[in-house]
């Protein structure tokens, strides 16, 4: 991982007490602006919910599906959200194993983002199937028909991959929260105290608890780390293991993982930059953190750049007319606009991050991050649109999304935003205990510890 290993410039002025105080302060009663945002999110979510009801009643035909395009916006959005999740796990698990100092301030927020993103993504396999009410047939449960699902199907792999990812990342988040919730509990009063003490599972931070805890945290991180690579690889095999030109690519797994982290970090910027301002965490989440995350963005963005180039090169070099047609039309076909709104933000915009000025300027980062989100959504859209022109020219057709597609998309953002906002106001979005780990405790004798 190409991240700085220089020690975190921890703020000498800060004591452990300050950390606790500042973080607990973020849980203070919310302002009007917060509730406005929250209601906005809930509103979007309701739009999605109503759209879904109509779809279940009337049929998927409400969406813009146009054979041979049997998948479109729903799967696009599904992959988009799964991708978002990855940055969180990367920062919280992999960087933990790498002991990279800059993760501590941001990992809690990104971890939460992961959980909620996967929560959103997990809805889509249900939304997008034709008979939503029997989605559970995808699970291997004993039934009177003696039927089992088909484990050779990439979609089954998906079910397990997403299920595992959701469970593990959720428990990882909650696990990390326990000591912090305890800390909050000890500051809280009234009914909040009771709630938090329930949630803290009576955590007291005894030597015994800590010794199991830190080991377990290490193992959990070790288990979660490969998920960062596996989950999106599995998702990419939904496409790569088919034989559709434009899907059938061996580079898909690394290409998707890089894309996932890229989009994830993009979303982290989009969420953290305003959040930091709103919760007044400037002295905990600093330019130093953003700079490092920007470097991560640059790194993954450059991998994407390479992957895009490689896709075109392979299509040309293979001499395979199907591949060639697909990629030609991706850039110059009827849907050229989608193709370019994928390539420009992802491949080219990310290259701006070579400049430290841009990396450390939050405004530019924020703007870029918005483009990253759009670009990455379109990447998935464009890849899925390969369906418009596969083997049999007679069957070719273009498709246009309808209100139903946009309704569900909006709903997914509402659903995600709703959860994230609720979390940000009720749980410490910065890991108290881990920040403290990097702030030396006062000593009687002079000199650092041996």
């Amino acid at each position: 991982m190409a991240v700085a290993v220089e020690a975190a410039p921890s703020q000498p002025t800060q004591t452990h007490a300050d950390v606790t105080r500042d973080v607990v302060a973020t849980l203070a009663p919310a302002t009007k602006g917060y509730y406005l945002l929250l209601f906005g999110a809930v509103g979007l979510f309701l739009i999605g919910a109503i759209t879904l009801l109509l779809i279940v009643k009337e049929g998927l035909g409400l969406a813009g599906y146009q054979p041979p395009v049997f998948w479109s916006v729903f799967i696009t959005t599904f992959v988009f959200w799964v991708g978002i999740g990855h940055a969180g796990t990367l920062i919280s698990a992999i960087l933990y194993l790498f002991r990279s100092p800059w993760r501590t301030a941001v990992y809690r927020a990104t971890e939460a983002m992961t959980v909620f993103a996967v929560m959103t993504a997990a809805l889509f396999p249900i939304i997008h199937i034709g008979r939503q009410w029997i989605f559970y047939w995808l699970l291997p449960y004993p039934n009177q028909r003696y039927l089992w699902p088909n484990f050779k199907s990439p979609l089954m792999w998906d079910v397990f991959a997403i299920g595992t990812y959701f469970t593990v990342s959720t428990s990882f988040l909650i696990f990390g929260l326990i000591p912090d919730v305890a800390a909050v509990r000890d500051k809280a009063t009234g009914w909040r105290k009771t709630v938090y003490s329930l949630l803290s599972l009576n955590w007291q931070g005894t030597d015994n608890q800590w010794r199991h805890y830190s080991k377990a945290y290490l193992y959990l991180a070790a288990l979660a780390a490969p998920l960062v690579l596996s989950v999106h690889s599995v998702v990419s095999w939904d496409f790569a293991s088919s034989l559709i030109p434009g899907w059938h690519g061996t580079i898909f797994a690394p290409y998707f993982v890089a894309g996932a982290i890229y989009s994830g970090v993009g979303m982290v910027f989009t969420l953290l930059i305003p959040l930091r301002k709103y919760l007044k965490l400037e002295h905990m989440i600093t330019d130093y953190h953003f700079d490092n995350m920007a470097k991560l963005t640059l790194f993954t963005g450059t991998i994407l750049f390479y992957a895009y180039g490689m896709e075109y090169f392979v299509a040309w070099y293979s001499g395979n007319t199907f591949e060639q047609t697909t990629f030609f039309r991706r850039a110059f076909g009827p849907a050229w606009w989608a193709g370019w709104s994928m390539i420009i933000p992802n491949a080219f915009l990310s290259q701006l991050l070579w400049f430290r000025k841009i990396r450390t300027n939050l405004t530019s980062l924020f703007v870029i991050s918005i483009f990253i989100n759009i670009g990455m959504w379109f990447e998935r859209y464009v890849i899925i649109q390969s369906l418009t022109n596969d083997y049999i020219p007679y069957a070719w057709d273009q498709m246009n999304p309808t209100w139903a597609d946009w309704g569900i998309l909006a709903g997914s953002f509402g659903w995600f935003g709703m959860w994230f906002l609720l979390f940000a106001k009720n749980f410490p979005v910065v890991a108290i205990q881990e920040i403290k780990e990097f702030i030396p405790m006062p000593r009687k004798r002079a000199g650092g510890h041996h």
Partner: protein
Amino acid sequence: MAKNTAGVLASFEHIDAACDTIRALRAKGHKHLTVYYSHPNHELEEACGHHTSPVRLFTLIGGLTGVTAAFAMQIWMNRDWPLLVGGKPIVAIPAFVVIGFELTVLIGSLATLFGVFLLSVAMRNKGVIYDGRYSDDRIGVFVPAGGAEAASVERMLRDAGAVEVKHAAA
């Protein structure tokens, strides 16, 4: 609710002081100390001198169960009602690897959590008094001691630099 343990609870501000005290107490034969601190800390862990946590066993067993179960399930279910798809063999091991991996991770991590819960929450020593500041910026050392012994322990703790000492009655 278990009855309280009688003993002395000292709060420290300085980590080196706390560590020295703990070592001293253990040297004097106080085996059942309870040390409170707000974040994972190596010095204190060393001072308490615990062995490595057995939680890793849970992880290992969980992971192994996961991978075996995954393959067992897939192979058995495919043979239970064999259907030809795409000219692939009924038992197609390569296709099963993914789920094999996923279940390893899933059951492995669930087992780990279970382990921690068992060892540190369910089995935590009840009835030992606690102070809210230990989750903030103080280190607490609780020495189970009663009667006369308590007094000597308190004295020693204060000398070691405890900023505050409490007594817990049985």
